[in-house]
């Protein structure tokens, strides 16, 4: 993937770029809002990572400008401001995801990869298929190798999110945010229990496990 990083903290940007390049992505760095906007206009990117507090042009204004100009490149906001209204204003300005500093690399990479898939979700999908696992979004049924799997409401949502991001690592925080819509971190790792319950339903009795634990990151659903 081609990623634009607009971040004035140079060491942070370098570390970020290195992490992303290790993951096989190409990165371009812009150190302020003005050059960031110019670069975003000049080239096509799969994802743009924007710090909220930028010199010259603020991150929010930059994204608003891009959106006004019709640029729909997925945007991940980075911010030291983690309050609810900060997040909401970032998403309102046209951001697609919001990550509060400091963050783990695994979290950043997982979110960037998740964003690159967003384009696929624009069209209306009624069925998801990952390997031999099939999900009917209208009938709300799940089958593996033609065998019906009975899921509860949350388990269904959890699996749907993981199937939409099949092959990508998803973090616990992402699951909490996207499936439960909670933006706080429960002290106990409740998410692990939910995932292991889902795993026992979709993998138990099958030869090949699909739901993998990714060390230091979270989980991944493999075909």
């Amino acid at each position, binding site marked *: 993937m081609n990623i634009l990083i607009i971040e004035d903290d140079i060491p942070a940007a370098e570390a970020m770029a290195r992490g992303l390049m290790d993951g096989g992505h190409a990165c371009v760095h812009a150190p302020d809002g003005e050059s960031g906007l110019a670069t975003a206009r000049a080239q096509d990117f799969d994802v743009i990572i924007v710090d909220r507090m930028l010199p010259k042009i603020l991150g929010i204004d930059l994204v608003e400008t891009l959106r006004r100009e019709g640029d729909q490149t997925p945007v991940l906001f980075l911010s030291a401001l*983690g*309050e*609810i*209204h900060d997040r*909401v204003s970032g998403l309102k300005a046209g951001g697609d995801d919001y990550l509060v500093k*400091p963050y*783990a690399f695994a979290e950043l990479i997982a979110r960037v990869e998740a964003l690159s898939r967003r384009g696929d979700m624009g069209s209306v999908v009624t069925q998801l298929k990952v390997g031999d696992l099939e999900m009917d979004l209208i009938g709300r049924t799940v089958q593996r190798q033609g065998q019906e799997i009975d899921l509860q409401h*949350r388990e269904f949502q959890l699996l749907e999110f993981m199937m939409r991001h099949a092959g990508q690592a998803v973090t616990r925080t992402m699951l909490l945010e996207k499936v*439960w819509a*909670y*933006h*706080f*971190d*429960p*002290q*106990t790792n*409740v998410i692990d*229990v*939910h995932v292991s*319950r889902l795993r026992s339903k979709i993998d138990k009795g099958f030869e090949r496990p699909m739901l993998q634990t990714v060390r230091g990151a979270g989980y991944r659903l493999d075909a």
Partner: protein
Amino acid sequence: MPDTRPIRPGWRRIFRTTTFRFTVISLAICALAASAFLSYIYVATVVEERRRTDQVIAREAENIVNLYRRSGPEAVSARLVDRAERNRAFIYVLTAPNGQKVVGSIDSPPAGSAKPTPTWLNFSLVSPGMAGNSPGRPVRGLQQTLSGGEVLFVGFDVGDDQAFILKIVHALWGAGALVLALGLAAGLQLSRNVSQHLVGLTNVVATVRNGNLSARAGVEGSPDEFHDLAKGLNQMLDRLERSMAAHRHAGDAIAHDLRSPLTRLRARLEVALCDLEAGQGNPEQALSQALEDTDAVLKTFSTVLAIARLQSEGDVPSAMAFDPAPLVSDIADLYEPLCEDKGVQLASQVAEGLTLRGNQEFIAQALANLVDNAVKYTPSGGGIMLRLRSRASGDLEFSVTDTGPGVPDADRSRIVERFVRLEGSRNAPGAGLGLSLVAAVANAHGGRLELAEGPGKIGDHGPGLWAALILPADV
């Protein structure tokens, strides 16, 4: 150096005050209006009175001149004698062309006949009976030369009129002076009054400017606008002082709360470095341990910050009205698998159709913290009850009851404080901030956190803890 002297109300100061300036301006307008009014009165009385008198004199003179034309000087003499007898207010003098007085109630008018004719005369008439230094009676009259060369003077004793006019003029001057004096006195008093009020407020502002936030304006006296202003100022200062104290407290708390984990992290890194230099130890493990420690510090930091913000702001951001039932069900849903794994039964009892005003996310987090604690301290085989109900008082109560060991009465208020962890819970995960956050969320919503004993001792279980987040309902 800022000026720290308290300002005292003084007369000299008053002349500089805005109120005094306004007083002078309004006084000037008042004086203008008063002089216009008084001038009108003067014209309407004094001038009119003089005109009337002149008219009477002129008519009388005309009658006599007509008689002279018709019947000659003798008839006039006879007439004048008769008129003087009957109307003593009129004064007549008829002088022959040779200057000899023919008839007259006084010796002669003061002026000679050289003047143009007819002419108005004003003079004082000293009667023989009067004291020597008396100014005499004022007389006004018309003198004219008749066709035969005689000089006729018809006058009128205007002493009474003049006295009346003088009285009016005096009254007018008096009224004018009174208006000015009263206005000035009222203005000075008003300025002094306003100044006194403002000086109190100015002194408070000066004291606060110099860093002493505890200064307050006096609010005794009648509930006027100064009273309101002083009260408003005091309320503003109260809030400012509270907020400053909270910020100071938050800063202290963050410094305190982060110092120990950071010290631990530093020590760990130092040990790892020493080990590495000595060619022993496992650097990879030390680094990943340090990373974990850093995450823990960051987590603590954001929680302490959230608590401090809630405490200092005193209210919650993005508050809105919502039905709390789904929120409670969602939290139950989030923790249900965890409880099941642990062999703890999680039940919920959720009242429907309630409305709450607040920040959903903070309330969800507070409730999650309560459930988290309950799960942590409830042994296998126990139970947790999550409940939402409306109290008789109208308040909403989110309660979490567990069948764990509970918290002794004496410790209950203590565990709400930051980082307080009771003996026996040191090995459980968490930093001891959970309940502090719940209390901060409760306070920010105008509610409270209540703790009480759970369902009591049942076999190996209990007595348990009942923790409730009580929030005012949306009215």
